């Protein structure tokens, strides 16, 4: 409601919120008490043990420290002010670095009132205002009386317009039973076993070695000495350990890898079920610890299809959804189908909203990426050539360099992108082949960066930031031509405007 008044009012008429309230003065005492063990007790104690200033000296030091701490706490208190306006809440803080934060009501997701033991003693409460931002301390008012905390919460909730909360639609996770549950994807025991075979990992062989090391003194050889290994195969202990025996050990290690892969996969994915329940999806899985999460469809930001060189050969794919704070086990990446045929993904993607697999050809990034990847090799190449003046036989090292170029050429084959129907598709990775499907309206910010070599070759990296994205390894297109990157960024922005 207030949002409409806001919209009608010209920018100049926006009343500035005055931050005129302090938190409760009891907070000074509260903080002081909380800091007591680490400052006024611990530091003088350290001083008492490490020097010989005597009891009076230590007490003086403790008193001075206490006075300084109390002074700083008072200063911090006096500089912390907040105020609730017609459309936002304002928090001013900082002793040296002064900050004035403005949190629009429409962005507030939740107002938490927290009461710890110390706060209870003083009859106070900590108010935490959460927005959709990535941080945790978006608006922390520490501490006010309970009546004031309630007033704040009421004021913020009243000021919030009905159509609020972008990007995450505030929606209760769990709770009400499903009206009509429609199975989207499930894995039978056979499928789970097969996934287990694909999850075979050499990590378990490392584990075997760790085990061997533990019992090393019981073995007749040093496991880290290759000569001894060779000796074992050769003539050292021919009657006890033959080549066949070594092979048997290797086979055992492989078998262990397979068994461990199957065991972990079965315990995690057994009975995997993903069901559509109208506004949300429900996922169940797990053999020993059965887990169940609810994924609000409106909270799904990005879909990610992942496969590998072997998996894709056999036609297997995994589907993940990147979401905001979904259900019990939090936000981030949620598995929606760990092991599925391509066609099986389509109904899930469709049920999740505006997602689909790319029908159009994805475009490769610029072929200059090979040059860009090879450019840093100029230095080692020069080093090899110079050193060849002394040792000409080292020139063969130059032959290694084209391998890097070849690797980047292969990487380019698997790095493609396209923008169609307001969906940005980005494919990347050779070993871990990932395909991001990003609806343009989910893009929070865009970044175009150019390193020195990229500027030299007129290339750029386009980063597409979304809510709940991982800190590294998010969706980005590396080594587009710079004009293409700029054009794509504009297209993405225009696409957002049209929706």
């Amino acid at each position, binding site marked *: 409601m207030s*949002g409409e008044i*806001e919209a009608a009012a010209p920018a100049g008429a926006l009343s500035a919120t005055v931050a005129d309230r302090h938190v409760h003065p009891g907070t000074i005492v509260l903080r002081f008490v909380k800091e007591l063990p680490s400052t006024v007790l611990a530091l003088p104690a350290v001083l008492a043990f490490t020097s010989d200033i005597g009891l009076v000296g230590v007490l003086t030091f403790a008193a001075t420290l206490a006075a300084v701490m109390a002074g700083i706490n008072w200063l911090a208190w006096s500089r912390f002010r907040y105020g609730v306006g017609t459309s936002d809440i304002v928090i001013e803080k900082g002793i040296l670095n002064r900050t004035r934060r403005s949190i629009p009501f429409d962005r507030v997701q939740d107002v938490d009132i927290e009461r710890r033991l110390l706060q209870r003693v003083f009859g106070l409460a900590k108010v935490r205002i959460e927005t959709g931002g990535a941080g945790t301390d978006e608006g922390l008012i520490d501490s006010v009386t309970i009546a004031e905390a309630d007033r704040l919460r009421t004021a913020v909730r009243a000021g919030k317009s009905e159509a609020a909360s972008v990007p995450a639609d505030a929606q209760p996770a769990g709770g009400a039973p499903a009206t009509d549950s429609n199975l989207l994807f499930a894995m039978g025991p056979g499928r789970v076993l097969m996934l287990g075979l694909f999850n075979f990992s050499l990590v378990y062989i490392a584990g075997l070695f760790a085990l061997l090391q533990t019992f090393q003194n019981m073995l007749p050889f040093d496991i880290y000495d290759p000569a001894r290994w060779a000796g074992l195969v050769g003539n050292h202990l021919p009657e006890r350990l033959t080549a066949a025996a070594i092979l048997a050990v290797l086979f055992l290690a492989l078998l262990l890898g397979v068994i461990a892969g199957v065991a972990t996969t079965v315990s995690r994915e057994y009975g995997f079920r993903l069901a559509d329940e109208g506004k949300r999806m429900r996922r169940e899985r797990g053999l020993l610890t059965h887990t169940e999460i609810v994924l609000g469809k409106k909270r799904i930001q990005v879909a990610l299809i992942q496969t590998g060189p072997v998996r894709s050969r056999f036609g297997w794919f995994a589907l993940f959804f990147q979401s905001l704070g979904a259900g019990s086990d939090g936000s981030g990446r949620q598995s929606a189908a760990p092991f599925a045929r391509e066609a099986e993904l389509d109904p899930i993607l469709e049920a999740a909203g505006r997602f689909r697999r790319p029908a159009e050809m994805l475009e490769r990034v610029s072929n200059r990426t090979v040059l860009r990847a090879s450019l840093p090799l100029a230095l080692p190449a020069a080093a090899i050539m110079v050193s060849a003046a002394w040792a000409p036989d080292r020139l063969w090292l130059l032959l290694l360099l084209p391998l890097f170029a070849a690797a980047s050429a292969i990487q380019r084959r698997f790095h493609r992108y396209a923008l169609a129907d307001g969906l940005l598709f980005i494919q990347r990775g050779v070993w871990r082949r990932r395909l991001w499907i990003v609806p343009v309206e989910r893009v929070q910010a865009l970044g175009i*960066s150019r390193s020195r070599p990229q500027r030299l070759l007129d290339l750029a990296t386009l980063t597409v930031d979304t809510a709940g*994205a991982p800190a590294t390894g998010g969706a980005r297109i590396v080594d587009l031509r710079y004009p293409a990157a700029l054009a794509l960024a504009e297209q993405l922005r225009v696409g957002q405007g049209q929706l």
Partner: protein
Amino acid sequence: MIKLEPGQLWVMRIHAAIFALVLAVAAIVFETAIVPEIGFPRGLIAGITLLLILYLMLISPGRHYRAWGYRMDEEDLRLRRGVWVETHTIVPLDRVQHLDLSQGPIERAFGVSRLIVHTAGTQFSRVVLPGLSRPDAERMRDEIRTRIGREEA
């Protein structure tokens, strides 16, 4: 692209000077206390540090200052920055979650403020635009705030 306030150049110079001072102290300690002990060539570290300090104090602040630029229109806030890696950031205004207007002691002395825009993203969850005059920063903040209200209505 709009340039930052000239005061920001001085803020950058002072930040560089503080960093240079730390470097200088570290280099002096190394030269006097450690070099004689381990028989490292004398003056090598000091020389390199001196060059580094000269770059930090004389060249780097100006280059960083010139690399900065911003533009805000109806739809977006756009920033450009970076000397070694040049970065453009586009923040759609209707994606802003909340806003900070910040000022440190050095910035206060030179009359500049920082506008910090928070989004729901990860890498660009906190986009900082330094070197604004107080009125400019307040005007931009109010414009973004109005924009958020308008989009919700």
